[in-house]
Every structure is written in C-alpha cells, then in structure tokens.
C-alpha cells in the first residue's frame, strides 16, 4: 500500500470513527420499549405468520420472548433497536443452558448465534416434554 493510499485509508477510518461518535451522541435510535404479552404475540405473528402459539414466556426485562408452537420454539430477542426472530426445535430450547436467571439459547445460525433471555425459571415443567 502506497503512502497516498495509506493516508486516504487513515483519513477514512478517522471519518468513520467520528460519524459513529456522532450517531451515538445524537441518540436517534428507534424507541424500543419492553415486550409485554400482547406485543410479544403481535411480534410473533409478524415474524411467524400463521403459526399457532401454545404458550409464551416473556423475558423479565422485556428484551425477548420464547414461544412454543407445536414441536418448535419461536424465539424473539432484542437486537440493537430492533428484534431478531428464529425458530428452533422445542427440545433444543428446553435443553438450553439456564443459569442465574438467564436462558442462553443456541440458535444454531452463524448470522444469529445465540439469544439470551432473562426468565424466572426454565424449563417450564408442564411443557418440557
């Protein structure tokens, strides 16, 4: 890389850093409130249209939800100022690691590797099977 290209790259990197700082200062992300039952169900209906929902567990901080839909678990978790949704086999969700009130769900997806949900307990005893 020549000197001119190096200078160009350095200036571009500095500009990128400044713009990120400006975006952080501006605080103009979308307002994203905590999920409640109605909002979680609406979001599940958007992301998984037509899927019936047997039961929903809302994260205690409202940052996500996990629903059972037949043999599948529908997972929604906050990402930035939006949400990300994935479905995994229910058995996989049931066997997810639960420690200190946090459920860590392996989504088995390189683009969305893991969802973490704050829940009072896991797995739910009546629906674990």
């Amino acid at each position, binding site marked *: *890389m020549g000197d*001119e*290209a190096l200078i*160009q*790259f350095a200036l*571009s*990197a500095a*500009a*990128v850093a400044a*713009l*990120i700082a*400006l*975006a*952080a200062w*501006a*605080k*103009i*992300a*979308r307002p994203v409130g905590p999920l409640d039952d109605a909002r979680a169900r*609406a979001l599940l*209906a*958007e*992301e*998984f*249209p*037509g*899927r019936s929902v047997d039961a929903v567990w809302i994260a205690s901080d409202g940052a996500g939800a996990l629903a059972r*839909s037949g043999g*599948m678990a*529908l997972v929604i*978790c906050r*990402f*930035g*100022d*939006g*949400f*990300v*949704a*994935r*479905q995994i086999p229910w058995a996989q969700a049931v066997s997810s690691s639960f420690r200190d009130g946090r459920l860590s769900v392996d*989504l088995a*997806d*390189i*683009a*969305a*590797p*893991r*969802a973490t949900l704050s829940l009072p307990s896991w797995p739910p005893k009546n629906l674990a099977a």
Partner: protein
Amino acid sequence: MKLDPVTLATPLFIITIILEIVAARLGKARANYEPRDTAVSLVMGLGSTMSGVFTAGVVAASTVWVYQHRLFDIPMTAVWAWAAIFVLEDLVYYWFHRISHERRFWWAAHVNHHTSQHYNLSTALRQTWTGGIAGTWSLWLALAFLGFPPAMIATQKGISLVYQYWIHTEVIGRMPRWFEAVFNTPSHHRVHHARNAVYLDRNYAGILIVWDKLFGTFQPELDDVPCKYGVVKNLGTFNILRVAFHEWIAMGADVLKHPRHALGYVFGPPGWSHDGSRETSATLKARANVSAGVGANALDAGAGGQGAEALS
C-alpha cells in the same frame, strides 16, 4: 491516489450523513441511527474499499484483455458514447443486481448491503467485501467487448454508485412524478430494501427504474405498507466478520451437509432447500398472497398475513 467518482464523492458522503444525523436529532428529518448498526455499515464500507484492492488487478487485466478483442472502437470523447454507456452500463447493473438477489452464490456477496434494519445514508455504504470473489464484475466485460474503453466503464460504474448513494434515505418522501417514472428514487429503493413479502426481490434498478418496469420487477412503495428493512432472517450479531461472511459460511455448511444437492444450495435462489423446509422469496410472496387474498396491505406478510408456515 485514484480519483474516481466514488473517491471524489467521499466528502459529500461524510457531510450528508452528518446533516442527516443532525437534522434527525433536531427533529427536522425522519432518520434513525443505531450506533452499532451505523458502525457496521461504515466499517463494511471502509473494508470494501480495501478488499477491492485484492481483486482490482484481475478485474483490470480482464477488462483490458477483453477490450483488446473489442468489436468496435468507441471514442471516449464523444457525447453519444457517454449517452450510450450511461444506458448500457445501467442495463448491466440491473442484471448484476437481479442475479445478486436471485441466486445464492451472488447473494452471499450482496446480502451484506441488506442486513441493516435501518435505512439511512450510512446503509448505502454497507458494501460487500467479497464482490470480487463472486465475480459479478465479469458482466461489465460485455461493455469492453463492445468497445467502450476500460476507463470509461470504470467512470460510469462510479457515477452509478454515487447516484445510488443519495437514494438510501427516509428523509425524502417522493420525488416529482416525472422523476419517479424514469429514475430510481428513495421511494423505489426503500421498497428494494424492505423485507415485507410484497416488496421482496423488486426494484433492482441502478439509475433508471425503467428496467424494472420493462422486465416486470417494479413495485411502487405502498402508503399502507410501511417498509420494514433488513433481510427475511435478520442478523442477530454486530460481529463484523459474521456480517461479512455469514452467507458464504452457511452456504458452505449446506453443501457439506447435502453434497448431492450442492448445485441447488449454491446456485438456487436464496432460501432454497432440497426438502422444501425453507422458504424463498417466491414462496413467501405466494403464501402472503394466497393467505391474504387481494389488497396491497394484506399482501404484507410481515403485517400479519395468515400463512401456513413460519419463516425458517
């Protein structure tokens, strides 16, 4: 230092992003910036300029070689030649862009540009790191074969990229009707970046929207279907390496897992699977259409259309 249109326009990129952020901060314009999302977009843009260096030699050498076997001698100084390359380069761009959405191998390179859940000027700079490897640049060799000088092709490609920068915004609603009829606009391109079923795989245009109208891929922005941005399965990570390479890795994993169906997983449409367990844009659109009946609003699966299967 190369002085192509994109390099020359870089200060404009920076200034307009600042203006968009400040205007939104002051409540004067509609724009949302999430800092980590913005960081990913801008670092992807910076990285794409670096990654381009690695394949620039191959691209340039191939273009020059093809130009040496050209059909015609097209003068770079003629106005008609610039008018011709304006139209023809835009036609090449349309097909590059269409194939980049409709075949997974090229989607793996292009998907990066669509992974933001935001639509602002920084999204325009969220560019691929693997475009050179994907080889879509070879489509532009047709212009060199016709006889357009390589420098002229590179300049027009740059002009097209700079044009497409300003349309990545929600600040501008709609342009005058005559402009919307002919040119790609923020409204048309918002549709292109939306994940609503009705908007999937539409509006591939670079500068002239007429190609979409000609080839049947045009979809106007609907007032009752607000755009939801991103990809069908949105990213759940800000890790820049995952953002840059996730579709390549997922495609490789599918090929290793199902080698007998490798061709389908590589060259089929994104979402294709040998057992039909996943959904393509076509199946998503069909499901939304069938379940919702008529009516543009109902076509929006993301707004609660009653489908038979979940996104997978």
